[in-house]
């Protein structure tokens, strides 16, 4: 087994969350690498959906933006943002991948501001399609750097809905039923959400990371089950494809 970075493992873990023959809403960055990796390994029929219109592209080369030509090269359809977002609104998109500067125990994400709204301490990019993905796709998976600064008791701003204030809160607010975050892929662990309480739960740590490390780097109380597994490290195949085919220029890894 070669050496690998936490980012590389994170990409592999994210890719493993993408089952074959499902639809996945792919944003810029890690999700693109993960989707490409999934297509080249276990999910050749993963249907990638990109915000600005590409559906079903074969990600032979890594796109750097969600609208660029590689997101609809050899695609099945190339439409526009309203068609894609309405497809999600109608319940056709299985998975969505999200990121943010902060996440709380209910999976709510902040990518808008640190501090108050205006003027803020730090102005972040804003929702982009994040809020739509988090509202309309069936399952969302957050991809996060793992640190106390990012896993916070309360996000400064709920940009994208997780379970809001807990069980039933999404439905009560008016969001489509049956949706919500299911996984968090961090640089330390794979996390999920407790069925009952909708609170974040540790599922498996990365090799070399302890449960205590994760707790230490999380700003809220995680649910720690009796058994915490260990994530499989990247296989040789995963690493080779990632390094040689997907990101040979080392833009992300």
């Amino acid at each position: 087994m070669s050496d690998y970075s936490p980012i590389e493992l994170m990409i592999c873990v994210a890719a493993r969350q993408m089952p074959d023959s499902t639809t996945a809403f792919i944003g810029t960055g890690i999700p693109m690498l993960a989707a490409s990796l999934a297509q080249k390994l276990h999910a050749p029929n993963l249907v990638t959906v990109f915000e600005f219109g590409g559906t079903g592209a074969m990600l032979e080369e890594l796109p750097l933006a969600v609208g660029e030509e590689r997101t609809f090269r050899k695609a099945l359809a190339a439409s526009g943002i309203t068609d894609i977002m309405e497809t999600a609104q109608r319940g056709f998109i299985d998975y969505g991948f999200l990121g943010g500067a902060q996440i709380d125990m209910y999976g709510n994400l902040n990518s808008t501001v640190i501090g108050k709204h205006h003027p803020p301490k730090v102005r972040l990019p804003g929702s982009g399609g994040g809020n739509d993905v988090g509202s309309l796709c069936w399952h969302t998976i957050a991809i996060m750097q793992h640190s106390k600064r990012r896993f916070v008791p309360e996000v400064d701003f709920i940009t994208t809905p997780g379970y809001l204030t807990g069980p039933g809160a999404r439905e009560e607010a008016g969001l489509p039923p049956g949706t919500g975050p299911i996984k968090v892929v961090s640089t330390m662990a794979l996390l999920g959400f407790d069925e009952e309480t909708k609170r974040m739960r540790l599922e498996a740590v990365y090799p070399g990371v302890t449960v205590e490390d994760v707790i230490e780097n999380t700003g809220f109380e995680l649910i720690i089950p009796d058994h915490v597994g260990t994530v499989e490290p990247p296989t040789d195949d995963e690493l080779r494809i990632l390094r040689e085919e997907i990101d040979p220029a080392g833009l992300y890894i």
Partner: protein
Amino acid sequence: MRVLESGQGELIQPPDLDEFREWNRAKKSRKLEDKLMDEHEAIRRFVFDGCYIGTELYGTVRAPMSLTREVIRQGFKDLRVAGQGVLELDLWIAAGIVKKLDITYIGLEVYGVSKALRRAVESGQIESVTEWSNAGITWRFKAAAMGVPFLPIRSMIGTDTFRYSAAKLVEDPFTGMKVCLVPALILDVALIHVHRADRYGNAQIDGISGFAFEMARAAKRLIISAEEIVPTDEIRRHPDRTIIPYYLVDAVVHAPFGSHPGEMAYHYVRDEDAIKEWVEASATEEGTQAYLKKYVYDVPDHQAYLGLFGKERLDALRAAAEAAR
């Protein structure tokens, strides 16, 4: 259909659908008129201080970069902007000409957050910031494009994105379900870059169409820049490719490499070094000003801008796109 909750953000451009109808009746000619002009004339005639303006598509992809730079060059200010953008809006913000912002995402994609945005918002230089999701703001364009005052949507609900927007949560009178209403967004000016257009403004786009369809129909004044100007006969041969019909258009600008340093699908790939140059320059106020001086103020027009890069480099961008086909 009770209003259950209202976002507290400023409605920066309140819609008036009847005034929009009247504008479209009186100010948009049905004549097939030659609207081909240079970027200087197009921007001078249709942009104005304080106007509410939008750009399509998205920074590094089919963005109207040559028009964007011309807006700065002509010194317009106090712009109110529909804010989904990368390089194009970042340039405006960095140039200090944006006063109010309906923001969805402004950042540098793979290169992270926008330092220009941070400086302008954290300092309070941008007076008003109202939040929306990407779909939310496009649905606002779509409402205007449909000629109706709002559209119901199922995102934004339950979040601070809603709370700091100007949307409303209501109960649907047919089913009782909760839906979010977003108000129509009628632009004073829109800038859209396309693959080809005729002199009248009939415009066609290859590949994804982003939100060109909606934005073109949501604007009172529409400036099209095009990689190629084609005879109307070519438009008439494939009318099902026309995304923007002529009567929506006020000006047509011929702009090869109009999206540079971004890409144009099938025509040229993005110029990564040129993009990185902005990313690095914009990290500081000084770098920003030097960049704007070199690439905007000190060049008279788009042709001269392209001259800074040279034919060989531009040819290579075309060749790379050709190789990918």
